[in-house]
């Protein structure tokens, strides 16, 4: 994009030096847009990594808990077989309570299976947003390329577009709050004692 503009400008005569300067503004503007969009894509990638790390950890926890729940269930069944079948003795009452707990754990684990799928949903959503940002970037570059190939009668209008985009990006940048998350993974954060 910059290359195209420079080449076309070199071909122009000296009287068009002013336009070269105006085009330089355009290049600065596009660099700012690219930088801004790259920043968004970086944030999206970071969010994807964080979610992915969290889900991987949760899946490990889930597998461990489900194994423990399975062992517990088997143990309850074994104790039940050993317990006397005559009437309601304290062991049988405890076993009944234990069975209720085991069933509840099983139900909760099923709910966790549904909840854990959020990672996949978020990853797909982030990929979709990243694609949209990419498309916006490509479209802006296309407009810029087209602009550099237009006749000089339209230069003023193009400069106005460039300065409009430049202003818009700056405005969004200024309005944006400081990035609240800097972690790149789910590792434990530093601890500082005073």
């Amino acid at each position, binding site marked *: 994009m910059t290359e195209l503009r420079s080449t076309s400008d070199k071909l122009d005569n000296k009287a068009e030096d002013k336009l070269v300067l105006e085009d330089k503004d355009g290049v600065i503007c596009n660099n700012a847009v690219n930088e801004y969009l790259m920043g968004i894509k970086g944030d999206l990638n970071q969010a994807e990594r964080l979610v992915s790390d969290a889900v*991987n950890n949760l899946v490990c926890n889930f*597998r461990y808990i*489900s194994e423990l729940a399975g062992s517990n269930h088997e143990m309850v069944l074994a104790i039940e077989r050993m317990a006397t079948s005559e009437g309601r003795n304290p062991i049988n009452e405890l076993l009944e309570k234990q069975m209720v707990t085991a069933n509840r754990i099983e139900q909760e684990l*099923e709910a966790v299976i549904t909840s854990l799928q959020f990672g996949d949903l978020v990853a*797909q959503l982030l990929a979709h947003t990243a694609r949209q940002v990419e498309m916006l970037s490509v479209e802006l570059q296309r407009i810029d390329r087209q602009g550099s190939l237009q006749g000089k009668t339209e230069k003023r209008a193009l400069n106005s577009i460039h300065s409009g985009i430049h202003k818009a990006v700056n405005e969004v940048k200024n309005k944006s709050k400081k990035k609240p998350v800097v972690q790149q993974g789910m590792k434990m954060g530093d601890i500082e004692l005073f």
Partner: protein
Amino acid sequence: MAKTILAVDDSASIRQMVTFTLKGAGYEVIEAVDGQDAFDKANHHQVNLILTDINMPRMDGLKLLELLRKLTQYKNIPILILTTESGDEMKAKGRAAGATGWLVKPFDPKRLLEVIGKVIS
């Protein structure tokens, strides 16, 4: 003998959740990471049902569906789609390609097993 299900998804966590659910219900599970991997595995193993995602690298679920339906041994095998996509247009494409059913993520383990139980017989 336990029935075998081919679970296809590019998300490792989804594959693990699906496998956990199906194995808990007594099914044998073969995992595949995308459509191409699934197609290769389907050619080397005899499976009783295929559960596949749509959006995957290398080969998507719809292409996999089309290719499998061309094979004699997979003409009548149930193929369920498990995806985040819920649009009518996409569903119509799936149906046209020969899908047996369409499940939108996130799935509920009990509901998934009910649907599989219905179609696998």
